[in-house]
């Protein structure tokens, strides 16, 4: 895979087949594209795509580690 493969380094808190009840979403009207949340994400589910923040729904585990540190409050949890 061209975008690199780094799944496997992170041990998910969920059992196989289990899915999170909530996942993180970004409000791009509020997000400043500072990138602070990227290294905070244990499964590396957040990346920037042409400077816009993207949260990968399939790898977000709903751990909330990105929510409070956002300096502008652009990340929130929604039902998965």
């Amino acid at each position: 895979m061209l975008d690199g493969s780094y799944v496997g380094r992170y041990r998910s808190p969920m059992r196989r087949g289990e899915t999170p009840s909530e996942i993180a979403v970004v409000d791009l009207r509020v997000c400043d594209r500072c990138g602070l949340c990227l290294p905070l994400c244990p499964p590396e589910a957040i990346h920037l795509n042409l400077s816009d923040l993207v949260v990968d729904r399939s790898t977000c585990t709903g751990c909330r580690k990105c929510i409070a540190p956002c300096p502008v409050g652009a990340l929130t949890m929604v039902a998965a």
Partner: protein
Amino acid sequence: MRDTDVLVIGAGPAGAVAAQEAKRAAPTLDVVLLERDGAVGTPVRCAEGVGDAGLREFANPVGAPWVARKIRRVIFLAPDDSEVKVAERDVGWILDRTRFDAFLAERASADGVEVLVGTEAAGMNRLADGRWEVRLRGALGDESVRVRMVIGADGVEAMVGRWAGLDTRVPARDMESCAQYVLRGIDIDPDAIYLQFGRAIAPGGYAWVFPRAPGIANVGLGIVALKADGRNAREYLDDWIARRYPGAEQTGYTVGGVITHTTITQTYTDGVLVAGDAAHMINPLSGGGIVNAMKAGRLAGRAAAAAVCAADTSARRLSAYHAEWMRLLGDDHLKYYRIKQALEELDDDFFNSLARTVNAIPGDKRTLGRIFAHALVRHPQLIPVAAKFFL
């Protein structure tokens, strides 16, 4: 598909210095410096303060167009607002990062580095011959480039390290969430930086005033969200400014993360080096990263050029870069990190009383050594903090 010898991703201080040093070390190599944004030096996500000695290793700030202000004093503000002046000498400079970063990139370009702006790296994978194929996206469309050495200088949001399989994640307790305004019309000493600590002001971090000109300053703060009361960094800053500088005109505004961790455990792999914020090469006590980034960039650029010239870009060879960085500054950062952790145990009352102790020393005798000695005698809580430095 085009080929290049050294591709540096990110044209901040780490990347620009890395590219220039690689080209200088081996002028026959093709060195490309990549910048995602449309211009080098924007947007600025920085308080722009830098120490005098470290800066002078790379450029002479006297009269330079990329300097905003010379700093002669540091004024600490205790949580109860009492002021402590601690230094009266050539402390440092407030940069104009837009111009400074452009200056560094232009200098690299003048030495023969190809600077590509408005182009982002979108991913990379290793080829059978040991080179990396890096996919680029930019104004001119998509293309791929085959590279012998990749230097990841892509900042807090670092992707190069991830793609190369390095662990660049940060524990939440070591991430400072920062917000900053440029304020106009404020009453400050234009030759001093101000730093204020306090649980209610900036939990886990500090608030700063870095003057750009008389009456104009970068005014910001950093907090550790885990220690916050539910407000985000911008809300803490708005409350602090409302109290200290009511009625000031807000012009610029920025937010960002400062990683107050220690250097990642591995900064290299086959054909890849990471430098600067991307490798968490930041003083974890002060949050200062500019000089650290330039020093790391210098090591990375030279190591990359030498590796290409020797036709050996193996992780085994490149591990010397990591060792060199740790000797130069990485090991010091580990000490600062331990001091940071020890200071986190002290409360606002301690800092208020420390300010009174220091202010009892006459101003002309207030050297850092004397402050340290007085503080240790009067405040035994500091002994375990000091001890961390020697561990």
